[in-house]
């Protein structure tokens, strides 16, 4: 019988289901512990702490009108196992969320900022941005004047986000006009 060179028997080649193995692929750090349970006992995987963080985060994200990010955070909270009673005494202080962030909205002194927030939530984006901008010299709505002096971090954020969204809406409207 002839023992000729044959093409590789396909059954012996395992299908490659991943990306090119020599290319860099961003991955979480490798773990030394083999069991997931062991790994989860380390501090970052403290379920009670995660629960508290997600609770705080979703409120913060909702407050800043980042609805999709808030929904995402809540979904993961829904995914956590049922709350154990002893967790009630967990401190809400998280090393990952700065304290000033949590109290920022409550400490806001400029009523305009809180007013602009409500406008933003109602979708009146350009109106919201204008509330936090300097008075316009002309009656035109073509461009937005610069921001008010001394806006807090929250104020700067609200104005920037509202102005960005206002621009996106103009972009959508222009694009719809074109399609007609």
């Amino acid at each position, binding site marked *: *019988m*002839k023992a000729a*060179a*044959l*093409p590789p*028997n*396909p*059954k012996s080649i395992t*299908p*490659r*289901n*991943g990306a*090119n193995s020599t290319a*860099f*692929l*961003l*991955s*979480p*750090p490798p773990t030394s512990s083999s069991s*997931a349970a062991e790994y*989860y006992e*380390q501090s*970052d*995987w403290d*379920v009670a702490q995660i629960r508290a963080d*997600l609770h705080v*985060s979703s409120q*913060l994200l909702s407050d800043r009108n*980042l609805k*999709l*990010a808030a929904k995402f*955070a809540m*979904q993961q909270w*829904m*995914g*956590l*196992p049922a709350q154990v009673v002893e967790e009630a005494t967990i401190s809400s202080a998280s090393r*990952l969320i*700065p304290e*000033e*962030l949590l109290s920022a909205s409550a400490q806001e002194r400029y009523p305009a900022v809180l007013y602009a927030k409500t406008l933003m939530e109602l979708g009146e984006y350009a109106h919201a941005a204008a509330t936090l901008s300097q008075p316009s010299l002309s009656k035109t709505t073509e*461009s*937005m004047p*610069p*921001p008010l002096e001394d*806006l807090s*971090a*929250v104020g*700067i*954020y609200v104005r*920037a986000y509202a102005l*960005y969204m*206002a*621009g996106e809406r*103009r*972009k*959508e409207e*222009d*694009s719809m006009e*074109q399609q007609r």
Partner: protein
Amino acid sequence: MVSSFSPSHFLCVLFLFSDTQKHVPSFNPYLLQLSHELLEAYQSDKLDAFGLYAYGMVLLAAKSLPPIRNAPTTQSILMKSILLFPYNWSAWLDLATCALDDASIEQEIEQSLQPILGGHFMYYFFCAHMQAERQAHAEALAIYERMLDPALFGASPYLMTQYALMQYHLRNISEAKRMLEDLHHHTPYRLDSMDVYSNILYVQNDSVGLSQLAHTAVKVDKYRPETCVIVGNYYSIKQQRAKAIQYFQRALKVDSNFTSAWTLMGHEYVEWKRTANAMEAYRRALHAAPNDYRAYYGLGQTYEILNMYMFALYYYKRATQLRPYDARMWCSLGVTFMQLGRPLDAIQAYERAMEQEDTEGVATQKLAALYKQSGQVEKAARCYLRYLELRYQATNTHGVTADDVSLDIMLHGLVVDGAEAEALLYLAHYHKEHGEYETSMIFCSRLLEYPGPEKDQAKGLLRELRQRSVTQARPAMRTRSKGPPASSSGFAFSP
């Protein structure tokens, strides 16, 4: 592997640019102003985590504008925001968009974020998301599996959907379908990714299931892009092309970046034989998602239909680069090479296809024919045999592999069409040339019921073999083919 080609490649690229200019994108009129204002606020340290996120968002959107002097990079701003507040998934998603455009950023991300957030679940989610976007679905699946531990995020609808999507992309369709079906059953109001579920139902030709899904989706929210895609698929399965396209367009009106609606619309136009519209749809898909292999594959198919094989080649090559583990991409590449009269390149393409799972045997059969044409007899024979094995496995119902049965049983378990007949005849000749008359006769006899020219050739061959084996002493043979040689007394010889 395959040689690159130049002049027509260049032509392809020119063609591409001239076409996308038909669609003039509109822009956000406040970007420039915001870029300046936020740069100043950043430099004066007035931005909190959310201010930084807003700045990052603006930088990302303003990429096409000329850069401002001393402005930081988009990724550096987003990472600063994330380090101050890691629970803003929108910031992570925008960071992912940056990295997908420029792969060198990924290492920067690892260096900046991993030391601090390396053990944080949001970082894990982010890595999984990046891996999925880079088509490393198996690796992403591993991360999702760990997260779905009941002690951790076992009930997260997001994770369950992602898990199902990875299975879908890895083509474990039944597993993906099971999970999506479960999710839909438990949370019928959740429409996220239900368009993928509708794709699965479409591919499985389940018009009843698709109809039910469409009815539910419409009741939940008529105007979500997912709902519109589901309804579009429903009309498509009923062959109502115009309505299907209308719904895909509706999906895009709601969200113009909903890539799958563009590609599905492209497929629909192809079915409807409107190739120009199909190409426009696929190009818009690429505009929204430059790494979507379906759009490249769709464009390749459209150009193939138009007999413009050099263009088809360009797009199929891109598709294989994005999904090197998918046999269909390599098969299409092989077909195109054949049309261009490049059999050697075609052979290489089909060999790559065979390395992946070629369950229907399409690549194997084409490869065998090419080996035969180029005179590589041993390889041709091996391939033809492999092709018959694959056809046996594809058509038999007991999940038995070809290894478990003898040659005779396998051949009789086959449905013999033109391609199988060609294979059987070739192998009959092959074994005859090697003096393996018993084996050759097995192949010949299988052709005797086949209503085609191969039957007569087989009859002639059998006659010849019978004469030879009568005049020759029968050696103790161990053939390379399957199982023990059947006895010759069972053959029906016709005069």
